[in-house]
């Protein structure tokens, strides 16, 4: 069997967001849509403070709730463990978005070009313009099929991202995992965390719902006493978050989860930091 998975070595991520842009180009995403999010984790205080950036996207769950939630069968998992969307069958109902515990689904409902022009730029008209579909990271499945690597991997300046078959013990990713990477839940996503990073921080950032038995990064909260979290929470902070290299951050409180579910049918959050409307809509949730 082949199980495609991705690993991100967080020490090699500088938060440059090259992955976000490479993905947006490669996958022809609409303005305001990004399949990759880059979150920011900061802990400690002067002179001992630390920060790491946390890119995340679809975790390629072993048993994807989005597939289970899809009413048309548009969402499915292929034999290599990659969850894909057959856009022909997608009705953009938002069920998958509501079901995703990682905020990785995006409803693309705006037929627009990046510069708000009537005519798409050459990079936009290449490939096919899709709209009114649910989207997510598909590990650039078409590139994998050609024996190439996803755009975010090829264009990562730090070499932080590794993709490959975890069932092959000789693969680069299997070796990296063996060096101490942590798996995100029951998924095809792994992180190598900096040694002093609070243990629960990744989960608290990448999940939209933090379960009761999973404490929300206490160290982080303590370290940030009196500080507005750098994470996207309010509209203004979203700007700041962007300022330091954050495309977007996951929605992670249960309130947000409910909000997302409620709005799902109406196309709640497009998901991108670029989507200022979405950011504002989320404002004040924290």
């Amino acid at each position: 069997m082949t199980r495609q998975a991705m690993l991100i070595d967080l020490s090699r991520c500088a938060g440059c967001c090259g992955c976000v842009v490479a993905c947006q180009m490669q996958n022809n995403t609409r303005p305001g849509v990004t399949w990759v999010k880059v979150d920011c984790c900061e802990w400690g205080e002067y002179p001992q403070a630390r920060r790491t950036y946390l890119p995340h996207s679809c975790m390629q769950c072993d048993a994807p709730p989005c597939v289970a939630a899809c009413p048309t069968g548009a969402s499915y998992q292929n034999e290599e463990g990659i969850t894909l969307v057959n856009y022909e069958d997608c009705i953009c109902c938002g069920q998958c978005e509501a079901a995703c515990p990682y905020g990785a689904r995006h409803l693309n409902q705006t037929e627009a070009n990046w510069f708000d022009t009537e005519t798409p730029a050459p990079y936009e008209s290449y490939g096919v313009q899709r709209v009114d579909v649910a989207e997510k990271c598909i590990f650039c499945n078409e590139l994998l099929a050609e024996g190439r690597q996803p755009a975010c991997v090829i264009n990562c300046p730090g070499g932080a991202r590794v993709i490959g078959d975890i069932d092959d013990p000789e693969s680069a990713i299997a070796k990296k995992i063996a060096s101490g990477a942590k798996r995100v839940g029951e998924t095809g996503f792994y992180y190598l965390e900096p040694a002093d990073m609070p243990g629960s921080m990744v989960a608290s950032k990448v999940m939209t719902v933090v379960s009761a038995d999973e404490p929300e990064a206490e160290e982080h909260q303590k370290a940030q006493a009196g500080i507005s979290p750098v994470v996207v929470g309010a509209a203004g902070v979203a700007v700041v978050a962007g300022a330091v290299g954050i495309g977007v951050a996951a929605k992670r409180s249960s309130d947000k989860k409910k909000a997302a579910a409620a709005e799902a049918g109406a196309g709640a959050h497009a998901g991108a930091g670029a989507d200022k409307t979405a950011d504002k809509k989320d404002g004040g949730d924290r």
Partner: protein
Amino acid sequence: MPKITEHWRQDTTGHGVEGAIMDNTNNTGSITEAEGISRRNFVTGTALAGVTAGMAGGFGFNLFHPGLAFAADDESLEVRHSYCDMCNHVPKCGIDCYIKDEKIVRVESRTDGYPVTPLCAKGIASLQELYDPHRLLSPMKRTNEKGTGTPEWEQITWDEAYATIAERFNKIKAQHGADSVLFFCGDPKEPRGAMQRLATLFGSASYGTESSVCAAASWMSANMVFGQTSMGQDPGEATKSALIWSLNPAWSQPNRFKGLMNAKERGVKFVVVDPRITPTVNSLADVHLQLRPGTDGALAAGFINQLIEQDLYDKDFVENWTVGFEELKAYVSAYTPEKVEEITLVPADKLIEAARLIGSNAPNTLITSSKGGCHATNVGHFQRAVFMIPALLGSLDVAGGLTLGPGLPFDYAASTPAFQLEDVYTEQGFQDRRYDRDEFPVWARYYKMMQTVHLPEYVKDGKIRAGVLLGVNAMMWPNTPLYQEAIKNMEFTVALDYYIRPWTHDYVDMVLPAAMCYERSAALGIFGRKIYLREPVIKPLGEAREDWQIIMELGCALGYEEECFGGSVDGALEELLATTGLGVTLDDLRAAPGGYDVPGPAPEERKYASGKLRKDGQPGFNTPTGKVEFVSKVLTDLGFEGLPIYEEPLHSPFKPSEQDKGYPLVLNTGSRVPFYTHSKLRDLPWLNQFMPEPVVRLNPQDAQARGLTGGDKARVYNWQGEIEMTAEVTNMVMPGVVDIFHGWHQADVNLLTTRDFDPITGFPPFASGLCEVAKV
């Protein structure tokens, strides 16, 4: 049917649509058709019912498989190579361009062995800049008064543009002399060789660049110490330790980050000096020396003191190849770790540990910066002290240290002194006519480009009256309005750019459209002993032209038809290659799209011992004394202190003048984010999404004291100016310091930075000003 498509289809057929739908129909209220739902009938149904507004109307969606950017069924795609120009034209990161119908539809990091890779966010977004509908694509001339804030532009032909420029320049030259015409390159490095050539042809000693506020202070400091321009060097296989002084390559030059991380994994020890906690600090630093901005000189003196105190320096090298060691030793002896801690706020034990780590892990390399520490009022001294560290450790020109000696005979802009007609410059005495000669004699000794920081004075005095300003940005200078006023008051100015930028171009008479990297060839890419020729990948959009072409054509219009090769870029490059004496031609380069290898001698260490560093063939370094100079002879000859002395920043919270009081926060500005280069690239949605607004970063302690929380609007001000930004509260910035990324025309931090120029380098103190912050 191509393989990739089959792969996809196979996947889809593996998942029966009906099953999934039947399981989930109940979840979707509006769908009731028992026979199953397809996208089409769902959409039709909802549209008719008017249920989902976002989906109704104009729905002609296409059915496709995802991504398909490089789908194999699209055989019309052709891959062509280019290199990027999105930051400062120096790294030249390789790009694979995917072409369809003579348009670039995708770009990707070049992976065929090209030496600089991969692309960063900016590199990918170069595609968006190329096709940005706001790009300037025609020559434009102003039709109303300059500086009104409402410029009116009229499209003109290239012929009219050249004729107008030539007529104005030649008239001003006839009346006031050639030096009154300024030939200037801003941040772009690629056109500099051509521009300097044109300046000299015209007879003007007024050639200047943006490097007079960036990078060149470091270059000349290295030159003063060991006789060669340097900005340090990344670790090699033999390197044991690396000292990174005021650089955050993880953000400013992302292409270097992977190599540095690989070095870290190989076991190279890192000491990082930076007032901030940067990604470079987080990922690389074994020891982080977090200093108060502007105090680098004290830290460097303390570092040297520790190398001597801990007996870690290379005595043999110091004895044989340096001058001034005893004086240096005596000077730094006052900079004990405790005293250094008082000045810099770096804990004494950290300094001791850092010196031990570097000093006991030779060979070591130094990586320093074009800014960072450079932007303080005593850079001319302390940047030299920084370059003395690898010298003291004997890490000059050894494997794993700083390589010295001639490589291929090109400069940082891939040009040559001969192509730039520097012999003419010297023979005709341009040096003696330079306007900056008396104010900045050390600078003038090292560079055949003027220090431009006194442009307002030169214009006011009638010394500079016209100019061709390529990539000029008035915001790059401290107290920006003075420079805008100066440009406005010049009799005639023409800018070359990709865009019309109001904060500068509101003050010029004409703007010409420059071609992007994809549309041009010059300059060459030089990597070690390899030369790459970049061919235009596509034709320039609109009427844009290559900057080298514009400069050469302008030269023809000015009367230098032959010397400017009839306007031919190929002609210019052929001449450039001829001046190298390498015997390489453009045809050779065209025949080597994977890079032309210039054969050369095997690498040799310690060339200072064999006489291969100096032109006269004598052993030693290219300094006046032939030795590494801990006391600079150039400086003492010109009346300056020769030791790398430390002076408290002119504006200091520790020694505030009357004017400084009330502005207790150190203003640290000018560093890079990964999304922008200076004031550029903010037009691009792919980049602007990350940082759409100006930001001031400050420590929680300082924020709390001012009632600020993250996301608040904040007023940043001092006695000179005021701007409004969004506050980010973060422990990445130390207490007492605010950190501001520059380049926002709506919040130009250089309204607050002062014109206190370092007398040795002429550099402004972008990183050691003072300010106060208040909640709006």
